[in-house]
C-alpha cells in the first residue's frame, strides 16, 4: 500500500529555470518591458507617468479581474463592453435627471450587476454556451445603450460628477485604489472562500462539482454577475472621468479584457488561473501602448509589436511544454 502513495509531481512546479519561466512568463515580460522603457527614455520612469498608466487602465483592469473568475469558471463574457456602455449612459442620465451625481454613479454598478445577472440567468437557464449568449446579449445591451441616449451623448454638468474619475487620495487616483480593492477582493474570493473553491471546481470539472453537491448553475451565475458588476464599476469611473455618457463608450473593452486574462496565463479551458495574472496582462498591453506614445515610435508598428509581444509571452509560457 505504501507504493500506491506515490503522487506524480507533474504540474506542481518542479524546480528549475524553465518551469519558472513558464509559470511567470507574463511577469517576466512585464519586467523586461519595464526595464527596456526605463532605460530608453527618461519620461517613462516618473511617478506621474506610472500613476497615469495605472489610472488610465484601471477600468479595463477591473473588468479583467472579474473576467478572470468567469474564465476560471469555464465561461466567457463578451458583453462587458456593452454593459460598460449601458452603465455609463444610465449613470449620466440619472445624474442629469436627478441632479445627483452620487446617485448617478451608484447606478452604474447596480445596472452592471443586473445585466450580468441576466447573462448568468440566460446561460444557466437556457443552457447555452456563454460565448454565444454574451455575444448576443452584448448586441442587445449595446442596442439598449443607443436607445437610452437616442444616439447622442449625455453631458453631465453636475458639479462633483467628475470627482470619482479625476480625483484621488493625494496623488493616487481613486481608480487605482478601486482597482486595488477589486483585485484584492477577487483574489480573496478565489483563494479564501468557498465561492472561490466552487469557481475553481466548476471550471475544472463541472460534473465533479455537481456530484459534490455544488450548485453549478448558481456559481456560474454569480461569476457573470460579478463580471457585470465590475463592468459597471469601470463604467462609473469612465463616465465620471469623461463627464459624459455615450453609447459606444465600452466598445471593444470586452476583447481587451479577455485578451489580458488569457495573456496573463489563466487557462481558456477554465479550472486554473489567478487574478494577478490578468492584472499583469492588462498592464503588459498598457506598457506597449505607453511606450509607443512616449518613445515617439511610428504608430504603424504598434499593433505589430503588440502581437509579437503577446506571442512571445505565450510562447514563453509554453516553453518546452512537452508531452
Amino acid at each position: 500500500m505504501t507504493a500506491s502513495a506515490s503522487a506524480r509531481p507533474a504540474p506542481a512546479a518542479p524546480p528549475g529555470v524553465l518551469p519558472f519561466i513558464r509559470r511567470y512568463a507574463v511577469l517576466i515580460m512585464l519586467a523586461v518591458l519595464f526595464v527596456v522603457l526605463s532605460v530608453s527614455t527618461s519620461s517613462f520612469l516618473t511617478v506621474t507617468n506610472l500613476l497615469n498608466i495605472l489610472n488610465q487602465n484601471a477600468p479595463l483592469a477591473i473588468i479583467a479581474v472579474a473576467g478572470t473568475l468567469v474564465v476560471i469558471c469555464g465561461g466567457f463574457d463578451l458583453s462587458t463592453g456593452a454593459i460598460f456602455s449601458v452603465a455609463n449612459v444610465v449613470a449620466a442620465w440619472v445624474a442629469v435627471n436627478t441632479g445627483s451625481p452620487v446617485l448617478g454613479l451608484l447606478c452604474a454598478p447596480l445596472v452592471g450587476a443586473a445585466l450580468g445577472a441576466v447573462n448568468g440567468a440566460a446561460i444557466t437557464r437556457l443552457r447555452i454556451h456563454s460565448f454565444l449568449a454574451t455575444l448576443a446579449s452584448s448586441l442587445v445591451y449595446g442596442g439598449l445603450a443607443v436607445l437610452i441616449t437616442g444616439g447622442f451623448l449625455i453631458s453631465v454638468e453636475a458639479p462633483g460628477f467628475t470627482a470619482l474619475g479625476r480625483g484621488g487620495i493625494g496623488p493616487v487616483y481613486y481608480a487605482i485604489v478601486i482597482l486595488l480593492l477589486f483585485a484584492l477582493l477577487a483574489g480573496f474570493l478565489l483563494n479564501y472562500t468557498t465561492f472561490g473553491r466552487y469557481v475553481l471546481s466548476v471550471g475544472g470539472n463541472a460534473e465533479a462539482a455537481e456530484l459534490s453537491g455544488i450548485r453549478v448553475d448558481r456559481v456560474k451565475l454569480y461569476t457573470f454577475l460579478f463580471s457585470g458588476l465590475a463592468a459597471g464599476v469601470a463604467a462609473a469611473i469612465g463616465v465620471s472621468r469623461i463627464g459624459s455618457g455615450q453609447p459606444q463608450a465600452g466598445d471593444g473593452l470586452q476583447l481587451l479584457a479577455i485578451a489580458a486574462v488569457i495573456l496573463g496565463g489563466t487557462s481558456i479551458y477554465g479550472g486554473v488561473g489567478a487574478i494577478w495574472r490578468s492584472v499583469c496582462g492588462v498592464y503588459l498591453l498598457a506598457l506597449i501602448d505607453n511606450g509607443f506614445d512616449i518613445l515617439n515610435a511610428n504608430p504603424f508598428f504598434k499593433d505589430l509589436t503588440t502581437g509579437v509581444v503577446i506571442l512571445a509571452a505565450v510562447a514563453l509560457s509554453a516553453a518546452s511544454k512537452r508531452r
Partner: protein
Amino acid sequence: ACNSDVSQVNSGASEAPSGKTGPVKIALLASSSQNGFNKAVYDGAVAKAKELGDVEVTIFDGKFDSQTQFNQVQNVASQGTYDGIVLVPNDNVGIAAAIPAAAQAKIPVVTTLFPVGPKLTELTPQVDGVVSTVAADTEENSKKLAEGVVEYCRDKDPCKVAILIGQLQFPFDNLRNKAYRSVLDPHKNIKVVATGQGNYDRDTSLKAMQNILQANPDLDVVLSNADQQTIGAQVALESAGMDLSKMYVTGGGGSQEAVKQVRAGKWAADQIDFPNSMGKAALEQVVNAVRGKPVTPVVDADTLGPVPVIVTKEVLDQHPGFKGEWAD
C-alpha cells in the same frame, strides 16, 4: 461664457513669458493614424512644420477610440516632451475632460475638424486649454448639402431620398442626420425612404445601398455624408443599371475620388473638407501659441481651400486645378 473663455485663452497665451524660442515638438493626436483623412491632416502639419523650421510633429494613433485618445492627451501632458497638441478628436465632449491636464502643463491644444466641448456647433473654444478651433460648422454645412437636394427635387413628386449616414450613434452623425431632416422634411414632395448606416466604409455602404434599392428601385437621391460611403453606394447603383448623372448623389469630405466623380458629372455635389490645409492651419496656430505669438481662436475651415464648401460640377469647372486634399 464664450467670451470669457476666449479672453482666458488670450490672456493665457500672453501670460507665457515670451514664448518658447528653441525647437518645438508638437503631438498630433489623430483620431486614427490609419485613415486617409487623418494622414492628410498630418501631412499638412508636417509640411507647415518644415516651412516654419525647427518644429517637429509626431502622430499618435487614436484607433477611433475615445478612451485611447483621452489617455494620449494625459500622457502627452504629463511627459513634458511636447510643447503643443493638435487634435483630431474622436469624442469631442469626453476629450474635453483631459484638456485641463494639458492646460496645467501649459501645453496649448488646437482642435481640428470638430470643436471640443459639449456644444457641437460652437466653434469658439469652450474649454480652458484649447487655444484654437480649426473646423467648420457641421450643422450649417449639412444643411447646405441638403438644400441642393431640395433644389433638385423641386419638380419631382415624389422625390425619393435615401440617406447614407456614418453611424447614428456618433454625435456628429446624429447632428448631420437631424440637419438633413430639418431641411428635407418640410417639403411634402420629398420622401426620405431609407436611412442606411454606411460606417464610413465602402463595403458596408455597398451592401446597404443594394438592400435599399431593393425596396426603392426608383430612388432619386442619395444623400451621403462621406465620400467612402458614396463610392460604395455608386457600385451598387451602377450595377443596378442606374444612371447617376440623372440622379442626385452627394458625398462628403472632398476626397480626390469625390472631386473626380463630381467633375465627371456622376455625383451632383460634395461637401468639401480641406484636411491638408486644416493640418497646416492647426500647426500654425499651435506653434504661434507655443512661441507666444497671437493666436486666432476660430479658423473657419471652409475658407482654407480654393473652393466653396459645397461643390458641384459647375463650381469645379471654375477651379480646374483643384484635386481634393486627401485620398482615402
